[in-house]
């Protein structure tokens, strides 16, 4: 083949080759755009469904703190005040909410208020005991049905029997809007209260704390065990069949469906060891077992990434193997191990199936304060709310998804921060 023929061939093929380049670039760009679009759509859906959950509707209610009705006197002690008959005050306030209400109307009006109103009236009084024998205008929480109507989530043009609020109640609400006696404010309950049967006072605080306690348990259990196991396997274990078998099985365990770990927790932790059901202690233990293989694999990868010359240097000045490993290899691998652990924790945070198996799906209306108290967890809470029939819970579940996503983003941010902070170059 002479020179000019070769040149011609190169030129003709060159076009094809650059076209190939272009095409691949285009494919890659399309793939990226597609995945971004899906992500944006997902986030948009969640946000547009959920942002209303951060607001609640409140109604202006005139409350007469009459000492006769309360069965209190201005000189009553704090303890006596706690026991005041606030439900009677509330009843009276509701009866006088609109002028000249009939008995059946009162029943309808009562349903415009949240069940929590009794407490709100009481709390207001306990904070300001001097209001006794005065009439006070208090903003109290509206019922979820009113809330949903005003947020536009439930429609008023459907037939009356398929609506939560009947025509009379609708006219009451309209009247309230006209008189500026309702408004929407920031929903503090969503962040300060645990789960409830009533959507307007249900919050994520309980399940958030539950998830926090669960993750704490996971971290305490899995971090030291994973470090120990991976350091042993990477640095000390003899290279023989048994070690190989263990290594293969760690990878296998990482692929075991999480519900199997849930069954293990149910069968062993609950039934054999008799640990308390539905608690972060058990949930955390199960999730720790589930995340251990992931963390061990990440830890081993980061231990492997430490250049052997560092260990050799330490050994050559007469360090023992343990000293060489713990003075030099482990500190250098620490950023990687921490990142691996946080990724494992993030996986544990989103896990639902094993928690269902060990009973963390129970309805828990309290905020847990310890590892051995029954509690919910965020993903299970979402599952519970999605399942609920009430409209009010729909926006709650979307909002809870936002909370768990922000939690995850924060954990990943911490992982990135730790990696940048502790990473050392050599």
């Amino acid at each position: 083949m002479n020179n000019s023929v070769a040149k011609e061939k190169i030129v003709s093929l060159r076009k094809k080759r650059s076209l190939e380049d272009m095409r691949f670039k285009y494919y890659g760009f399309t793939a990226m755009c597609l995945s971004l679009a899906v992500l944006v759509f997902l986030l948009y859906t969640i946000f547009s469904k959920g942002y209303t959950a951060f607001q609640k509707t409140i109604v202006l209610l005139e409350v007469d703190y009459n000492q006769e009705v309360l069965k209190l006197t201005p000189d009553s002690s704090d303890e006596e005040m706690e026991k005041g008959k606030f439900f009677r005050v509330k009843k009276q306030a509701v009866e006088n909410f609109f002028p000249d209400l009939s008995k059946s109307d009162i029943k309808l009006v009562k349903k415009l208020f949240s069940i929590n109103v009794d407490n709100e009236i009481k709390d207001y009084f306990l904070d300001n005991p001097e209001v006794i024998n005065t009439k006070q205008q208090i903003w109290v929480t509206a019922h979820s049905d009113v809330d949903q109507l005003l947020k536009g989530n439930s429609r008023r043009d459907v037939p009356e029997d398929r609506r939560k609020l009947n025509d009379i109640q609708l006219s009451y609400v309209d009247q309230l809007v006209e008189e500026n006696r309702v408004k929407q404010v920031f929903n503090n309950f969503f962040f300060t209260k645990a789960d409830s049967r009533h959507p307007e006072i249900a919050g994520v605080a309980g399940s958030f704390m539950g998830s926090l306690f669960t993750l704490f348990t996971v971290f305490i259990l899995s971090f030291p065990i994973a470090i120990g196991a991976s350091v042993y396997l990477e640095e000390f274990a003899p290279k023989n069949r048994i070690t190989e078998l263990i290594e293969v099985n760690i990878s296998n365990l990482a692929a075991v469906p999480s519900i199997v770990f849930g069954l293990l927790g149910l069968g062993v932790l609950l039934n054999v060891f008799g640990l308390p059901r539905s608690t972060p202690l058990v949930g955390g233990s199960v999730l720790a077992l589930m995340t251990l293989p992931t963390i061990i694999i990440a830890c081993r990868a980061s231990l492997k990434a430490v250049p052997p010359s560092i260990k050799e240097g330490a050994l050559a000045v007469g360090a023992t193997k343990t000293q060489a490993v713990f003075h030099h290899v482990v500190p250098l691998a620490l950023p990687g191990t921490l990142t691996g652990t946080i990724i494992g924790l993030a996986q544990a945070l989103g896990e639902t199936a094993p928690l269902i198996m060990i009973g963390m799906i129970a309805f828990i209306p309290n905020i847990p304060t310890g590892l051995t108290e029954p509690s919910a967890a965020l993903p299970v809470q979402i599952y519970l709310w999605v399942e609920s029939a009430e409209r009010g819970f729909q926006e709650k579940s979307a909002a809870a998804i936002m909370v768990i996503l922000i939690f995850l983003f924060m954990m990943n941010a911490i992982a990135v921060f730790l990696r940048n902070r502790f990473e050392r170059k050599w």
Partner: protein
Amino acid sequence: MSNSKILANSVDVYYGSKQALFGISMDIKEKEVTALIGPSGCGKSTFLRCINRMNDLIEICKVSGSIKVDNEEIISDKTDVVSLRSKIGMVFQKPNPFPKSIFDNVAYGPTIHGLVDSKNDLEEIVHSSLKKAGLFDEVKDRLNEPGTSLSGGQQQRLCIARAIAVNPEIILMDEPCSALDPIATAIIEELIDELRLNYTIIIVTHSMQQAARVSQKTCFFHLGELIETGETNKIFTNPDNTKTQDYITGRFG
């Protein structure tokens, strides 16, 4: 002989089923520089790493035969490898300072061996080691900076200081200048010449000029066998073996 420091007798080394060294016997004198030369893969580094048992790190490596350091057998399960390594320092091919401060790099050895009782003692050892390695004047104002921030030649001298700090008697150097530029190499060679007064040094090198410059004894390895050993002058001017002759005149390797 009385001033023999290391005495190797028919050392065989296997990597798995592959034999890397064939019956190496060698007598290394105290306070001399012995150079191990030979083409790549001839086993000189392998032999060097037998002396401080670094080959233990390689799972498939088996060493047999006898190496005596100060008349004590070290190829044995009973050998205390840790104290052996405190007696035999090692400098590697690629500078490998710890990713810590210059001070901590040198201080690490004395600290783990408990050679110092007070902070002042430690400071003294670190300073004197850095001085002996000819690095002190260059780094005295930045002892807290990471050792990895130094230049290649300085890093290698830092590694020498680190080895000296535990007060060894023997220093093994595995191609210490192969990653360095000519000026840094010259500095290290000068340093080796000075260190010879206090330490027994064994240096593996690819550069025959370097071997000729720094060593008193030279051992020529070829395909896992020790072909010839003798006074450096003699090896480079009038070797007995034709293979040695061929290698140093550049006919192979």
